[in-house]
């Protein structure tokens, strides 16, 4: 256990020096093209906002089912099958057909090549499930169908969230999927997430619809409230144009009456429809509806064929800017709810870094003094090992660009405290060996060999705990698991290579001395 070949010594030296260099790259700026990796600071240390959003898929499911009723009716109409009493209840579609048609309907839904009910061969499942309840026929989304629907609305939502966050221009945002109905947004350096929260909280579903007095409008009507007052208006459900038709939206100052407005440009389809609707609807009121609330309902005075227009509604410059941003980034497929928020101000982050560093320095000093007092020369070896260990640990974290959190710093300090364990186990064992063994080299060798299983056991147990923490923990706690886990490997390396190397050199030089340890 005490023999080191020259090659191995070289390897250990290079390895240690390399990691010390890597670790110090966090302190000194190297040329970026040469080495640009750095330990990332977690949101709790650099300040910033962590938002967990949940997509409310209920409206999407409702909407899809609503569309599906129309599709089903039309589909079977072509096949001369009459669908009766079609209705939606608790996310199920119910309808009746005459008994002679029943089998044909069931067959269509169960056909793997059906275009009405897509089949996913990979999951051996259709999008929809059909069941003959005897009373009527029940259609609902299958498990896979729901999963597909959720992931697709998540895909859309994350795209929109990304656009909105990017438009606000925050520093390196981190936007990730969580499960199939959640989105995680990390905004480093953001002190006050209020604006982003309010932007993400809006679906931004924009529609232009005529205000009508005709209760029997072919498309149905609904009563909607105005955004800025308690007034209501009856609005047709027919959508003239929607947010999808917008090419651009910008906040502007209307010089005529000194109002802030949002001007927009429509795509070709939108422009055509808008032109047609404004030419037939002169004198009518056109309601501009955002997320179920009327922003304004101006009277159409002229045909607007240019494909651009403006929205006024008593905006401040900020609210006009936000509305334009929302319109540009597009509507969310479903409402988002912020179910978890953690925001740390930058000065608290800095305080945490300072406190963590002071604790690390003091903890380190205490351990080093303790070890020196207890073991003298071998304490020195342990201490050098500890220092190198700390650098290798930081180096590994740098190399993987790991995220350092406040509990992560605690993990490093704890590693310092526990790292001496392996050395102590070895030294204590050597002391015992020296009681019966006069040959220093044999005693030291025996000490290393016989302490090995205990050291291995001890480290594996801690590693197991760290692994579980890593997979089960969230955010800052994960940072603790990382430093604790990586610390175990760097500790073993420094004990078995660095400390052992020093020890072997020392023992070889003093092999005839008594009471070596």
């Amino acid at each position: 256990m005490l023999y080191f070949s020259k090659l191995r010594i070289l390897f250990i030296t290079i390895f240690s020096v390399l990691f010390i260099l890597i670790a110090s790259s966090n302190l000194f700026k190297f040329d970026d093209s040469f080495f640009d990796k750095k330990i990332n600071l977690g949101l709790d240390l650099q300040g910033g906002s962590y938002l967990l959003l949940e997509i409310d898929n209920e409206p999407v499911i409702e909407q899809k089912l609503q569309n599906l009723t129309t599709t089903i009716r039309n589909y079977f109409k072509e096949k001369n099958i009459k669908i009766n009493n079609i209705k939606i209840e608790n996310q199920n579609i119910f309808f009746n057909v005459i008994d002679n048609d029943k089998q044909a309907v069931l067959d269509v839904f169960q056909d793997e090549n059906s275009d009405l009910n897509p089949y996913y061969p990979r999951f051996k499942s259709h999008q929809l499930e059909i069941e003959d309840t005897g009373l009527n026929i029940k259609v609902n989304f299958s498990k896979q169908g729901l999963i597909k629907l959720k992931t697709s609305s998540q895909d859309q939502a994350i795209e929109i969230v990304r656009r909105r966050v990017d438009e606000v221009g925050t520093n390196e945002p981190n936007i990730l999927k969580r499960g199939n109905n959640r989105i995680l947004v990390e905004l480093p350096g953001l002190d006050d997430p209020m604006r982003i929260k309010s932007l993400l909280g809006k679906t931004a579903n924009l529609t232009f619809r005529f205000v009508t007095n005709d209760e029997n409008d072919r498309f149905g009507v609904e009563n909607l409230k105005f955004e800025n007052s308690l007034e209501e208006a009856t609005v047709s459900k027919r959508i003239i144009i929607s947010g999808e038709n917008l090419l651009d939206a910008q906040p502007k100052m209307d010089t005529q009456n000194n109002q802030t407005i949002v001007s927009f440009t429509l795509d070709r389809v939108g422009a055509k429809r808008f032109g047609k609707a404004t030419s037939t609807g002169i004198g009518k009121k056109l309601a501009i509806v955002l997320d179920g609330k009327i922003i304004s309902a101006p009277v159409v005075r002229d045909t607007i064929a240019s494909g651009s227009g403006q929205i006024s509604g008593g905006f401040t410059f900020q609210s006009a800017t936000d509305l334009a941003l929302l319109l540009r980034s597009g509507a969310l497929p479903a409402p988002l709810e912020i179910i978890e928020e953690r925001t740390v101000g930058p000065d608290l982050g800095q305080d945490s870094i300072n406190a963590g560093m002071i604790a690390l320095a003091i903890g380190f000093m205490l351990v080093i003094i303790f070890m020196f007092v207890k073991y003298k020369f071998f304490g020195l070896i342990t201490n050098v090992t500890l220092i190198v260990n700390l650098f290798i640990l930081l180096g590994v974290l740098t190399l993987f660009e790991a995220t350092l959190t406040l509990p992560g710093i605690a993990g490093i300090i704890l590693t310092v405290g526990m790292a001496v364990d392996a050395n102590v186990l070895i030294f204590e064992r050597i002391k015992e060996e020296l009681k019966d063994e006069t040959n220093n080299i044999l005693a030291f060798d025996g000490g290393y060999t016989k302490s090995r299983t205990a050291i291995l056991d001890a480290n594996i147990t801690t590693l197991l705990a760290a692994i579980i923490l890593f997979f089960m923990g969230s955010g800052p706690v994960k940072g603790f698991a990382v430093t604790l886990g990586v610390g175990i490997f760097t500790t073993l390396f420094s004990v078995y290579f660095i400390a052992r190397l020093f020890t072997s050199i020392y023992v070889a030089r003093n092999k005839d001395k008594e009471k070596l340890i």
Partner: protein
Amino acid sequence: MIAFNKYYNHFNLLSSILIVVSLLLLIFKGLNFGIDFKGGTLIELRASDTKINVSSLRDRFNQMDLGDVSVKKFGNDTDFLVKFENKDNKKNIIEEIKASLDKSFGNNYDFRRVENVGPKVSAELLKSGVIAISLSLALMLIYIWIRFEWQFSLGAILALFHDVIVTLGVFSLFSLEINLSIIAAVLTIVGYSMNDTVVIFDRVRENLRKYSDIKIFELTNISINETLSRTIITSATTLLALLAIYLFGGEILKGFSLAMILGVIFGTYSSIYIANTVLVRLRVSQKTVLREDDQK
């Protein structure tokens, strides 16, 4: 040599009492769950005006109809921690609070930290915390089962349960807050306690093979003494490091480091007085290890 074995019975009794008391506390008093596990909102606030103190803040917050509000000093005289249920999970609650505080205190305060955990997330966090702790105990059990004979496994696991339960008992007794970092601490305690026990057990087994004529009662004492200086040194350095975190690591790490300090103390104690006494009570002998060796 210290005669640890003289006090086996005394300390077994003490531990039994500690465990029963802790369990009673956990059942009847319960744990003081933070917002991570209970849901709600937390605001860390720093004041630059002496008018702002616990009672004036409490008055202000109580007027806002936020449900159960707790206001505490946090570290020094200018920092406060405000927690409330946010029962209706109101969306713009932080803005409303800011507006309301502005009215009474002007601009003389600053929100340093805001955490808002919805009921769904807190339920999930609690569940995953419980799973994490159970899973780690199970993994330790499996590991020790592979490494040692069943008598040893039982001893180690009892010691582990003792450490976790008594640490949580102390948290319950003093109504210390349980949050995510405490779960991390408990898991680390599990690792540490196991580590400590395994080192002594390793020696017990080695000695069992070596001496056929020493009774387990004596043998455990020899093994404890042989590993004692290691136990003391490792516990001491770990405690020194933890003490540094507790005293200088800032308010946020206080609960975490306290749980760890308790865990290290209980862990060291339990590897001597619980893990080993289980071996004695199960009358482990040389045969126990030799039989296993034969099988391998």
